[in-house]
């Protein structure tokens, strides 16, 4: 047969270049290095009060909620869905947790903290179940189905909080979003745990195969006996659950729950992270690691804007410019046409 394999020719740089995560990773690296060049202190890490301190740690800690949400979003998108209610679910979970813990200054927690956290996560998962049922059972288009919760969810959160920002005075709760374990923010460990869980679920069970089959061709997967409906519902539940987890981190970090503003526009950031990571919004191809990188890129962008002293009026312009650069860098077609231009130009020069 005319199979041709020449391992000597595909050297490792070539293989690295072809890896789908290469460009997101390179982008992140360039962003960080660029920052380091502009502001030498940016990459510095110090040991302060028993933990690491610096911009890199901040980026990690800040990005944690976005990473969590992006992971859930990736899976939903992989199965040809979309969840725009994540911001609202985050707000609900944060509010539920804060409401159950609340109490006054020094008053301790109203209900036991584990109960509060469990309740918050359960409510979030319930939200996911609701979304999943609307999509799968009622057959609504994902964007409308989740739009309903996106609109009503914040209302529910505000109903719980009575329109107030619920301030939390119970110090043990602060650990989730502010605490450190082994010198690193605790939130990073939460992210790592979820990543580990997903790795096992997708690579050590058949779920990964099923999700990709559903994303590639839902009808064919269904005909092949894959429980496509149950899995799809499960993915919505997971997505909402991870948004709930993010809600715990966020409310713990700012020691309060702001039903109106928590997770505002999170859905856009999460979808942006997912796309930057190389996942196709049309389903089929997805990359969880890519989404993590995407979320880190977004957070680094934000932190960059804050730390290089951009006037706030042009925040958006800078962000737009960076997103354009990032996505063009990642486009194989763009790189090809650039190469074409570079190649053509010297040739043209010789002719003249």
């Amino acid at each position, binding site marked *: 047969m005319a199979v041709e394999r020449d391992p000597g020719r595909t050297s490792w740089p070539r293989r690295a270049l072809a890896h789908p995560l290469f460009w997101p990773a390179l982008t992140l690296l360039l962003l960080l290095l660029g920052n380091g060049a502009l502001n030498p202190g940016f990459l510095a890490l110090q040991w302060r009060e028993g933990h690491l301190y610096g911009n890199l740690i901040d980026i990690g800690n800040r990005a944690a909620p976005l990473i969590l949400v992006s992971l859930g979003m990736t899976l939903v998108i992989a199965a040809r869905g979309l969840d725009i209610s994540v911001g609202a679910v985050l707000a609900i979970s944060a509010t539920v947790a804060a409401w159950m813990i609340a109490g006054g200054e020094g008053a301790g927690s109203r209900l036991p903290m584990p109960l509060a956290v469990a309740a918050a996560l359960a409510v979030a998962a319930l939200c996911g179940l609701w979304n999943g049922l609307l999509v799968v059972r009622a057959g609504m288009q994902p964007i409308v189905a989740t739009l309903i919760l996106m*609109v*009503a969810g914040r209302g529910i*959160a505000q109903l719980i909080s009575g*329109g107030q920002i619920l301030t939390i005075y119970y110090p043990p709760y602060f650990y989730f979003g502010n605490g450190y374990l082994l010198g690193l923010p605790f939130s990073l460990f939460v992210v790592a745990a979820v990543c580990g869980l997903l790795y096992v679920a997708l690579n050590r069970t058949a779920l990964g195969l099923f999700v990709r089959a559903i994303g590639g061709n839902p009808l064919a997967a269904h005909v092949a006996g894959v429980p496509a409906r149950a899995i799809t519902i499960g993915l919505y539940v997971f997505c909402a659950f991870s948004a709930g987890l993010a809600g715990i981190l966020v409310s713990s970090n700012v020691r309060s729950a702001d039903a109106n503003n928590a997770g505002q526009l999170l859905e856009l950031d999460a979808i942006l992270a997912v796309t930057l990571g190389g996942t196709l919004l049309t*389903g089929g191809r997805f990359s969880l690691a890519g989404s993590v990188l995407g979320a880190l890129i977004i957070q680094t962008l934000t932190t960059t804007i804050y730390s290089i002293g951009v006037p706030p009026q042009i925040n*958006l312009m800078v962000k*737009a410019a960076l*997103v354009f650069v990032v996505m063009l860098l990642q486009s194989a*077609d763009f790189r090809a046409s650039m190469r074409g231009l570079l190649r053509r130009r010297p040739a043209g020069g010789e002719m003249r």
Partner: protein
Amino acid sequence: MNARNESARTAASGRQQEPMQRRRFDPKYLPLTVTVALFVAMAATGGVLYEGFLSPQVMLNLLIDNAFLCIVAVGMTFVILSGGIDLSVGAVIAFTTVLLAALVQRQGWHPLAAIALALSLGTVYGAAMGLLIQRFRLQPFVVTLAGMFLARGAATLISVDSISIDHPLMTAVAYLRIPVGGGYSLSLSALIALLAVAAGIVLAHATRFGRTVYAIGGSESSALLMGLPVAATRIAVYALSGFCSALAGVVVTFYMLSGYGLHALGLELDAIAVVVIGGTLLSGGRGYVAGTLVGVLVLGLIQTLIAFEGTLSSWWTRIAIGVLLLLFCLLQRVFERTRRLTLGVA
């Protein structure tokens, strides 16, 4: 053997014969009909519950107050039909209002010249995004999201404050009311919106461009193999959406008589929702421009219902919008249930 085939065939052809006469009611219009019927039912419920709800002016206000949404949604319908999405529409509206206001109020341009510039800028902007999407195979979501940041950024760059407009021509047009009889009236914007819908319907259903958009949304690879101009059409679709956004921006400028970088915040989501409620599939290829108009009216009606209720706190307002949306979409699904197997995903 041929003789046998022949006899089998004659037997079969009687069965294969399908009713060729035009059916009275084509099932492909069912979703649209259901949506319209539900709209009417919802309006009637409002009429029973609230005094003055069914007054013609309230219904006309639906059009007046949602004219810009309607115009944007027409462009968005084409984008979604082609299998894409355009998140930049709200930002382009904001940019247009600021640009118009700045040109007219600060630079002393004639409004018509400013409008012409704004419309062409919007079109070019949309086309540029379409070019990126088409040429470099970028995902529409990211390109138009960056486009949204850019347009809003540009708007705040021109002016952080809102700029009021008091140019006599602009105010005259803004106050213009077109009587429709019985003491009721319509604004010029509403008329433009209706024209946009009409133009959209013709464009979608009676031109090659429109049918190509549907084909691309149905299957891009097939469209390519059928020899349709996929690249040009895709770019044109985004250009059209850019134009519609700019036109909506002009309408908003008249509606608010001001230019402001924070106008039309989050409008992209409303526009998408309206298109989808109107029965267009987000995955592309199926839907109607006329449905979009109904979608706009439905969203407007929900808001009007809540305004007439008048006792809801802020959070109950949100919950009520969600519940009404849910009811509407659920009923829509229940009535549309076809016998075909529909898998919940996709």
